């Protein structure tokens, strides 16, 4: 009895001091989180103000109004822009997930000639900045007659060196026994990929998907340059369309930004874990 009670008694003061010790840490983290979220809250607050209240020095809008949202949705075809963004981002993500898991599997588990060399070349591609390939890629897409189509917005991005790198590293870290067992049971490469590799790599794939979606969603220059008509433009272009060089209606811009931000925000909340592990895996790249 006494023996049982003792640890309970002893653990209480320890817990207390542990909590006490954590206070500064949480204080610091909360402050940091607040600093990060403040611009977002300010944006949200601005999106609920009328023109005249825009610069009123209060955190909350003096008078709530949804007028900026109405303007953003009616004056600009934000809906069709959002649909384009959603379609292209989803298909790019799907493409990257498929190509990365297949290539990653091949590079990690299939005995190919010059496998390391191929992998080295793919890693090397990570070092090539997008600015260098931009114009050649544009000319290539043009010669294929793809300008101003969804194809131009999607196809160039359905394979990603980062994705292949991530999947190869992840699949390599799994025990070889699993793959051997599947092989002994008579599974071919596709079956192994589908029934062994992909289920085991689902966390890595989820992270990759989340990162890819975010990256595709935020693309600006490529869709701007390759599209020729309004019907093909994406949400990021719509946001920039709300901004005027000679002074903008920032409340409408804010409302538009919130509307464009919303899908990624929702995606983040749903796939928060995947996002965090993805950033931990990838180190960077958003």
């Amino acid at each position, binding site marked *: 009895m006494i023996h049982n009670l003792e640890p309970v008694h002893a653990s209480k003061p320890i817990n207390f001091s542990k909590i006490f010790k954590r206070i500064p840490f949480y204080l610091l983290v909360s402050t940091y989180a607040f600093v990060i979220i403040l611009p977002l809250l300010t944006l949200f607050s601005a999106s609920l103000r009328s023109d005249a209240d825009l610069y009123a020095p209060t955190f909350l809008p003096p008078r709530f109004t949804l007028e900026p949202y109405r303007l953003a949705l009616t004056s600009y075809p934000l809906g069709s822009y959002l649909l384009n963004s959603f379609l292209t981002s989803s298909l790019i993500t799907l493409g990257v997930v498929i190509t990365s898991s297949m290539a990653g599997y091949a590079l990690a588990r299939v005995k190919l000639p010059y496998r390391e060399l191929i992998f080295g070349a793919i890693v090397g591609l990570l070092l090539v900045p997008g600015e260098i390939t931009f114009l050649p890629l*544009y*000319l290539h897409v*043009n010669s294929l007659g793809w300008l101003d189509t969804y194809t131009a917005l999607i196809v160039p991005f359905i394979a990603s060196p980062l994705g292949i790198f991530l999947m190869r590293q992840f699949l390599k870290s799994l025990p070889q026994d699993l793959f051997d067992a599947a092989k002994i049971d008579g599974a071919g490469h596709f079956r192994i990929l589908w029934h062994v590799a992909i289920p085991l790599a689902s966390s890595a794939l989820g992270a990759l998907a989340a990162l890819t979606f975010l990256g595709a969603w935020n693309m600006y*220059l490529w869709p701007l340059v390759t599209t020729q008509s309004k019907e093909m*433009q994406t949400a990021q*272009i719509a946001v920039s*369309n*709300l901004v005027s060089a000679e002074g903008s209606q920032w409340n409408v811009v804010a409302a538009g930004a919130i509307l464009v931000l919303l899908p990624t925000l929702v995606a983040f909340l749903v796939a928060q874990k995947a996002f965090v592990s993805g950033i931990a895996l990838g180190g960077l790249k958003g």
Partner: protein
Amino acid sequence: MKKVLIAGTLVALSMALAQQNAKTEIQFWHSMGGVLGERVEGLVKDFNDSQTNTMVKSTYVGSYDDGINKLLAGIRAGKVPNLIQVYDIGSRTMVDSGAIEPLENIAKSNNFDLEQFVPQPRNYYTVDGKLNALPFNSSNPLLYMNTAMLAKAGIQYRNSWRLSDLEAAARKLTIKDASGTTLRYGIAIPIDSWFVEQFSYNSGEYFCNNENGRKARASEMNFTNPADVAFVDWWARLVKDGVMANIGRSGDNAQAAFAQEKAAIVAQSTASLTGLLKLVGGKFETRTAFFPFLKERNGVAIGGASLYAMKGQSAEELKATWGFISFLLKPNSQAKWHLGTGYFPVIKGVAALPNVVQAHVKQPNFQTALRQLETTKVNNYSAGCLAGAFPEIRQYVAGAIEEAIKGKPAAEALKDAKAKADAALDRYNSAIKK
């Protein structure tokens, strides 16, 4: 009955489709976002509704810089629009690109009398003796004044300001607390090379050599002229004394400071008029005045952007492009554009239209830019500087203002910036020669 209806609808549909196919479609790229973008789209819609065989497809292509990048990529691929909007300082580059069809050629072949243009915007876009582009959205810089504050400080409103008078007024308008911290600034100007350029012109100085690059290609910048040195020195002094708000490079900050009554006077483009009045929202009376000058007022150059027709269009397309351009030049379109945005009409006689006169009586601020334009001397000062690499040069000038504010003597800051700007201009000019 039903069948007849269906058949009728089908016939009508196919006729509509056939008509659709017969239409000449032209691509128009513009960089007007926000309210200005809505106004452009409005004009395009008006035009399309009035046409049976021409259709303008307008596309917003991002900022002016984005638009130029898109165009450059397009030139490589042979995918260019029929008409594109390019900012004022891209004029030299557009002419040098050789990818444009000068407006003067198109206008002449359509028997359009160029004398209908207001001379200053026409001058600005005339390069090597030819009008190259349609001055579409043309603006000039204004002072926006809070008249309630002016009245309280006992300052009489007037539209013409010498720099020294503006300083005296700004000092009077400044309110400081006991410790010397400024509570309200007399004036705020965004750190933007454009205002330095305009101060050159307005004081009768060239911003770049060879008479603003109008007599021959500019080979050197000239912003170390006495007017600009005085202006930047004035700027730095006023910031140091807490009379001018240092609001950074964004024009939006100037508008915010003005609307929040943190600054009594701000310098902004006339194109900001509609937006700024909206921000003020009737809290106080706003009056606009001409841009300041050093000793004697010459008048300013225009800013804004123009529309270029691209080379290589079929005769049919060119005809449609001209159709759209001449629609934009119609007095009614010009009036609509002017009153909807604050940009001024570029065709003579628009200000005399009854609806424009009426609007000017209701909102006299719309007149200031026009008056400033009318009273501007037509010469190579007010033609504005024409130089390559202008976007880069602007960065150096803005940097020089910042250096001066930090304490570097204005003359020295501008001299250092000139060295960098001249190098950029050299690079551009030698690349063109090749």
